[in-house]
């Protein structure tokens, strides 16, 4: 859990206090923390003068605006047909073994979260994943192990 502090105030000063400011503000919070706490959503609701339920309802619509705790690095593995055909299951298995968590879970040290996602637009270089914003493509179990090792050392 993180403390939202002044972040929401700063973001609404930057993006505005209108309903249309909601997406940029929520996105900025997620950019920083990878998910939205209840406290953050309540703060946003207060700044924009809308109900907390409305903030939650909007956030929960978007897959990347997570309202559940996420780790520092969110690994999204594409599960749409081409990645599925090209070995996504092996990638998932490798990651589950490496991180010792199942798809949908976060490591106890809050470093990594592993989730499946729909087509991220790298079908010609499948299988592909996103780690936070960065795409990694043409993956093999060996390759993905290297990538995660790098992240672990950060």
């Amino acid at each position, binding site marked *: 859990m993180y403390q939202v502090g002044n972040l929401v105030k700063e973001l609404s000063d930057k993006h505005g206090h209108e309903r249309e400011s909601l997406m940029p503000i929520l996105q900025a919070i997620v950019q920083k923390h990878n998910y939205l706490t209840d406290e953050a959503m309540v703060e946003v609701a207060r700044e924009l003068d809308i109900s907390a339920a409305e903030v939650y309802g909007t956030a929960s619509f*978007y897959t990347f605006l997570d309202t559940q705790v996420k780790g520092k690095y969110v690994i999204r593995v594409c599960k749409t047909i081409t990645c599925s055909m090209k070995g996504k299951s092996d990638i998932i298995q490798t990651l589950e073994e490496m991180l010792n968590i199942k798809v949908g879970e976060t490591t106890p040290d809050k470093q990594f979260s592993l989730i499946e996602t729909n087509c991220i*637009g790298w079908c010609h270089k499948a299988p592909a994943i996103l780690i936070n914003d960065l795409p990694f493509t043409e993956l093999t179990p060996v390759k993905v192990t290297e990538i995660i090792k790098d992240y672990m050392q950060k």
Partner: protein
Amino acid sequence: MENKGLNKVDLIFEKIDNQEVLTKGFKMSKDEIIQEILDSGLKGRGGAGFPTGMKWKFTAEEKSPEKYIVCNADEGEPGTFKDREILDRVSNKVHGGMAIAGKAIGAKKGIVYLRGEYRYLLPKLMIELDSFHKMIKKIGYDFEIEYRMGSGAYICGEESALFESIEGKRGEPRNKPPYPTVSGVYGKPTSINNVETLVTAMMIVQHGAKNFIKYGTKDSRGSKVFSVSGDTPTPGIFELELGMTVQQFVNEFGDGDTKAVQVGGASGFCVPRKKFAETIIGFEGVPTGGSMKLFNSSRSMYNVLHNYLEFFTEESCGQCTPCRVGCQQLLKGVEKVKKGEAKSTYLNELMKLADTMKIAAKCGLGQSVGNAFKSIVGNFKEEIIY
């Protein structure tokens, strides 16, 4: 139907001098620009295929001081990755195309809605945008572009859902009428165009409609960028003239064992081998936003169908009954048939349901689920049942 054969073209990614092309474009009146686009026969490159000239004309006709040109960069159709490539390599042409559109329709503001999965492109795009704004100011044209990000919702590629998202709400498609050209983003007249459409429009202004119609067929003018993936030795981005048959496509991109081609992604049509020769890739045959997936004989079409139905069940916005519940019924239905827990004749009921979804769903997503369903079940029934 015309068959132009498979011809590679290199127009979209051609490097140009933005300032030069735009200066030429701004010398034209808005009516001249619109006429040029109408003459070119350009149809939307996102998949829906609405005549771009008509869209700009309708928006231009609206009397409102505030109008918008929106670039739909929410490319989310499975198998489509050509807009990503365009934004990566020639974003200056995307911005330029928006400026031209702005002139045509009378919009001083442009918004690019970029899908969250492409956020890694943003730093590069911002640099290009900055130099674009400087250049536009230099040549004395009042036009400003803003970027808005998506956050992981396929349905936001639907025009009215996209507007809702920009306005800070859930991406739930709106009731139509009114249509975007009358009431779009913020309730103002809006022309929403695909990334590739805007680049192509700029190309037409640069080279003229007469040169554009040298490519393609009467109903599918010009060339198009395709994103090819699946069982192919050469996956990637290819710009091809419109009007080839699926057979010609497979001859070029297949691995020698192509069983089926999914044209248009999950919301498109599955073309079986026996129909390759007679099917034209274009608006008169099977249209596509660019997604072309090849499946060879090792693939189970049940898995393909299941994957698509799971996709729709998750990505549906959920507001309307035919789509929200229909997708779940189709998914659960084929699972039951496969497991033998439902009779194979149940598929006939599901085909009827797919028909209902096509005419009763609120937006294009729900209306298109039936395309893949009917074409896969219709052509590969044994693979679904056994």
